[in-house]
Structures are given as C-alpha cells and as structure tokens.
C-alpha cells in the first residue's frame, strides 16, 4: 500500500490541469473579481451620485481614482461596471453553455433526424450575423439588460453545440462507451465518466473565450449608445461619456479602457489554446 499512498495525492484534483498561461489568467481574473466585489465594502460612495462642484478631479483621499464629468466617484463606478460585466459574462456563458452542451450531446448521441434538425437550427442561427441579432433585440426592448444577454447567448451557444457534438459522436462509437454499456451503466453514468472528462477542457476554453466576447459585445453596444442607458456604470458607456474630456482628464477615460483590457486579457489567457 506504500506506493499507492505515494501516487494518489498527486492526482487528486479532478479539475483539468492548467498551463502556466492559464494559471496567470486565473490569477488576474481573481484579482479583478476581488477588486470589483471588495471595493464597495470599504469605499461606500454611490456610483450614481453626482457632485457637480467636484467634476474631473484628480485622485484624492475621498475619491481614490478621481471623479468624472458629473462629479461621480470613479473608483465606485469602475468597480460597479466590472461587476456588471462579469455578472453578464457569467450569465451569458451559462445560458450559452448549458443548451449548447445539452443539444450537442443529444445530437451526437442520437444522430439521425434529431441531429439533422438541431444542426439545421444551429446553421440558421449562424446565418444571422451575431451583432445584427443583438441590435434587433435591443431595438425591440431598448436599454434592457435581459434583451442584451438573451441576444448574446443566442449567438454563443452554437460554438458549444458544434464542439460537443463532434466529440460526442466519436466517443459514442468508441469501445469505452460500449464496454460500460455492456456492463449495465445508464446514460447519466456514461456522461459523467466518459463524456464529461473529455469535453470539460474544451468547454472551459470556449467558456473563457465566450465570456471575453460577451463582455466586448456589451461594451461595444454601450460605446455606440444602443446598450444600457445612463446612469448605469458600464464600461463601454463610461468610455463614450468620458471621451469629450480626454484632454482635461485622461486618467478618468483610461480607467474603463484599462479595466476592459485587463478583463478580456485575463479571460483569453485562461482560455489557453483554441480547441477549434
């Protein structure tokens, strides 16, 4: 038993082994998360409160990252915008990944007409340009957070579907699945023990890339003023609001840009190599 106890602890983690790049991304993302959620605990400024006597101020003790053109606290606003972006990214990843994986496994497993129907639906969704679909939904329900996120996840699920379906097709025909089926195991077991360990690394990569593109899409919509409405603190919206003041207060405009850059960068690092 000596040897068994020596080997076992090294491989206890079920989480896919991350590369150095991915670990750096995860660390950066953890720091951003900590920043976004810890700031309100010790800095209780309201991100929407205007103080018109204190506009475009340099960082002070009261406002550690300065104030914007309406005297709102930049630290509170950046943290709030990051919370919004991260929450939105998580939500769109989950809503895209869950149906994507579910339909992908069903299509790959069953094959036949079900596979053809689901494949056609995915192709039809792809035929619409993604941003156009989002703009359409935003036009139907302007300024609505939910419309934005439904639009973004409608575009994103197809990637999960395709990757999962292709891998599942190969695995379903493999001896390992057949062996387990002959041993009397049901579909849930087959998914948990055979499919998921193979799919997880690819889904993780897609999720990180998907989160990055969802954040970018939301910021882009905010920047062209079709996304969320003021006074919401949102990265793209903050950029366009502060654009006229870039000369007087470059530090203010740099903040949402830097926050967006670091956020997307950390997610791309976490994604690792592109599985496609």
């Amino acid at each position, binding site marked *: *038993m000596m*040897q*068994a106890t020596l*080997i*076992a602890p090294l*491989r206890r983690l079920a989480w896919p082994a991350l590369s150095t790049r991915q670990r750096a991304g995860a660390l950066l993302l953890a720091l951003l998360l900590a920043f976004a959620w810890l700031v309100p605990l010790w800095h209780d400024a309201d991100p929407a409160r205007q103080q018109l006597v204190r506009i475009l101020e340099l960082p002070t003790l009261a406002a550690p990252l300065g104030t914007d053109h309406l005297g709102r606290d930049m630290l509170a606003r950046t943290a709030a915008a990051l919370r919004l972006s991260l929450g939105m990214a998580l939500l769109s990843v989950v809503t895209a990944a869950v149906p994507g994986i579910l339909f992908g496994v069903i299509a790959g497993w069953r094959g036949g007409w079900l596979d053809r129907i689901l494949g056609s639906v995915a192709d039809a969704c792809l035929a619409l340009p993604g941003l156009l679909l989002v703009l359409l939904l935003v036009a139907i329900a302007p300024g609505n957070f939910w419309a934005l996120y439904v639009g973004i996840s409608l575009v994103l699920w197809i990637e999960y579907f395709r990757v999962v379906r292709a891998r599942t097709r190969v695995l379903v025909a*493999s*001896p*390992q699945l*057949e*062996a*387990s089926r*002959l*041993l*009397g*195991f049901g579909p849930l*077991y087959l998914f948990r*023990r*055979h499919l998921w*360990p*193979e799919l997880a690394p690819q889904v993780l990569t897609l999720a990180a890339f998907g989160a990055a593109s969802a954040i970018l899409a939301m910021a882009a919509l905010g920047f062209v003023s079709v996304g969320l409405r003021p006074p919401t603190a949102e990265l793209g919206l903050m950029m366009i609001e502060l654009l006229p003041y870039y000369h007087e207060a470059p530090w203010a405009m740099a903040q949402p840009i830097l926050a967006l850059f670091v956020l997307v960068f950390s997610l791309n690092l976490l994604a690792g190599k592109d599985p496609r």
Partner: protein
Amino acid sequence: MSHPLLQVSDLTIHGDGVTIAPFSLSLASGQRLTLLGETGSGKSLIAQAIMGTLPQGLTPAGELGIDGTSYAAADVAARRTLWGRRLALLPQEPWHALDPTMRAAAQITESHRHVAGLAPGKARQATQHDLAELGLEDAGGKLPGELSGGMAQRVAFAAASAGGAPIVIADEPTKGLDAPRRDAVVELLARTPQAGGALLTITHDIDVARRLGGEVVILRHGQVVERGPAERILEAPQTEYGRHLLDAEPSRWPAPPRLASAPDATPVVAARGLAKSRGGRQLFSGLDVSVLPGEIVGVVGPSGCGKSTLGDMLLGLASHDAGEIQHAPGHRLGLQKLYQDPPAAFSSHWRLSRLLDDLVQRHRLERAAIVPLMERLGLDERLLARRPGEISGGELQRFAILRVLLLEPRLLFADEPTSRLDPITQQQTLSLLVELARERRCGVMLVSHDPALIARLCDRQLALEENAEAASRPSAKAEPVSLA
C-alpha cells in the same frame, strides 16, 4: 571475405530512464539478424540509434561502420545522406508511413526519381517492375486507405527499397497482420539478403524470427540475454528467460483443462441462418453458431470478414439481416465483450478503484468476491490506485476480465484480446481466461489471427471466409479443431 556491410560496436543509449547496455553486431552481405524481445526491451531503440532517428532526450554513443566508412553513433547529421541509399527503414504499421493523399505508384516513383535519381520515364518503368514483382499490378492507382494491410506493407517496402539500399532495417514488420500476410511479409524481407544485402529485423514474434533464420539476439531491459544462430537459440535456449520466452509460443502452451460438460447441455447462445451485409457486400449468410457453457470457440478469418460484426450481433449490439439468435435465459448482463486495445475500452480519467466501485454500486455486487478473483488474475491491489494509462496493457486486460467476470457472464466475446500484448503476457492472460471460463461455465468466443493459438486453446473453431457469395452453401462452418 568482404568487409561487413553494417558494423555496430559498443552502441549504448542513455537518457530518460532508458539504458541500453553496450551492443555490437556485424552483418555481412547476405546475412540477417533478428532482435527479439518484449515491449520495453529496447529493441526498437537500437534500430533508431542505427538510423539516427532516436527521440529527443536519448543520446547514443559508440561506433557504427556502414559500408566500410565509420561514423560516431551520436553524429546523426552525417548519416542522413545514407537514408534510402545505403540504409532503409521499413516502418511498423506502414499505412501510417505512406502519404494518404498520394496513389501507391506515385509514392514508389517518387523514391526512384528523387532518391535513386532516375529520369522520370525510367522511374515509372522501375515502379511498374516493382509492382509486378510484388504482385501489386492492380494496386498502383489506389490510395493507401484503399489498400489492405499486407498490400500497404508491400508498397512501403517498394518505396523504402527503391533507392537500392543494401541495409534494410524492419521495425516490427508484421505487427497487426494476420497469419497469411505475415508469411508474405517474411518472404518479402528475405529478398534483401538473397540479393546480397543485410537485413536487421526487430520483432516480438518468435515465428517470424524462426522463418527469417540467421542470427537471433534476445533482448531484455536493454541487455542482451542470449545470442546465436536461430536454429540453436529458438530450439534450445540456454538461459531461463530465453526458455520462458519460447514457452510463450502458442504451440508450446500447456493444453487447457478439458471441457467437462455433457454435449446435450443448453447452449448459451445458438444462432441459425445468420446473414449480414455491410456497405452492399455480403459478409456472411446461412451461418450457424452455438456456444456451450464453458466452451471456448475460436473465430478465425481474414481481416474485414465480419468477425467483430458477428460478435456484436450475438451480443445484441448490432442487427442481423436474417436468421435467429437464441440466448440462454438469464439476466441481460450475461453478454460481455473483451476488446483488442485495452486502454481504448476504459475512460483514462478515473482510477481503477473508482471504476470498480461504480460497478459494485451499480449492481450491488458482493465485495467479498473481488479480492480472491483479483488474486487469481494476479492483480496487485496497488494497481487500483492507478489510472488505465498508468498500468501495462496486460494488467489492464486482466482488470477488464475482472470487471466482466464479476457480472457472472454466460457468453464472453473476446475480440483479439491479446493481439497487442507481448507473447509472455499473452500466454498468461489467455490461459487465465480459459481456466476461469471453464470454472464459471462461461462460453467464450475467441477471435484471433494466430491459427496456432486457436488450435491450442479452443474446443471448436468457426472459420469465416472472405466474400461468401453463394447463399446456398454454408460459407462458414464450425468444426472441431484438429490438434496438430
């Protein structure tokens, strides 16, 4: 006496936990030498060191003499110009060595043109000559994917030897080939020494070594265990390991326990008039199969004749076009299968203990039954802490047998369960399987390419033929094995 074509003096290989002890050989024109050993004995590394294609992290040392010129073993670049012209390598699994997008004739012509330096017209003529000589007249226009294993092997041989290299190194040339094709490859290899070249063959197949003749070297853990002329080494080995290795040859296996069952026992599976076609081709028709409890039925036939499909039909995994299959009454888990490639039959992500626990929980099995069975199978409890990729193929196949036997199967379809294992491991695994099947009265259908193995182990054999056309004539019949 001419100088040797290939001379290797004190070749050693170090690195990555591999050590090959000083190895020397000398091959003159017309001579042949065979390196025999199990997986991990370092036999392929010696071939790679001579060619200069060792993987990263391994460094060779020693002297090589090729055609009277001497080279340092570590100087790989100098030997590169010899490839194809003086030194040719016949790779294992040649279908991986051929370009899948290029037709067979074009690949051979390419060698004639660019390695041998012939003019285009001459190169085409030489290719036609090669193809005709190897019996491949019709195969020139085919892509590697359309060739059978034996044909691909011959095309690869023609392409590798087009440069006229007198020294041919064949690395496991018969791996994955069935018996008739194996013999054809051996004949093909024997041409080189007949034409005045030198042949170095690496194999784990004792039969191949015997047919090739010449000098035989038995390797184990990078050490030469025994060397000498094939007739002496392969008939009367001096060392214990040598005897052990030779005893693993199917024709020398101890006979399995006799089938002690009344001939009128209910068969575990009985099928009548089975027919199946695939891709518009009739695989078989009018096929009758029956397996008694505890009986070992061998299934033989050329590649692609539907042996695995027959198994899937009997296990209920595939449909049949005509005929009927009757199973003995019992639970549905009584039909089980063993796979050719053990790691492919397991998910590589979980520890074996986890997989075993899953099975026990799923079917509420008696845990008490596991330990004695593991002992019978020679499985150490420590292995359970590992994952499928971390133990040897033989151990994994025995673990597969353990899992299957815990379910008390009535019929076990073993699809070439040991074709990827070394001879010694193969013998251990199969004799255990037969013994346990007899004990537990489980009918076994054993697929194999090796006629000697079937003759030794099986009570009856079912011979499937290729392309059975006549529906009236039974294309396959089960008959008692004639013990040679």
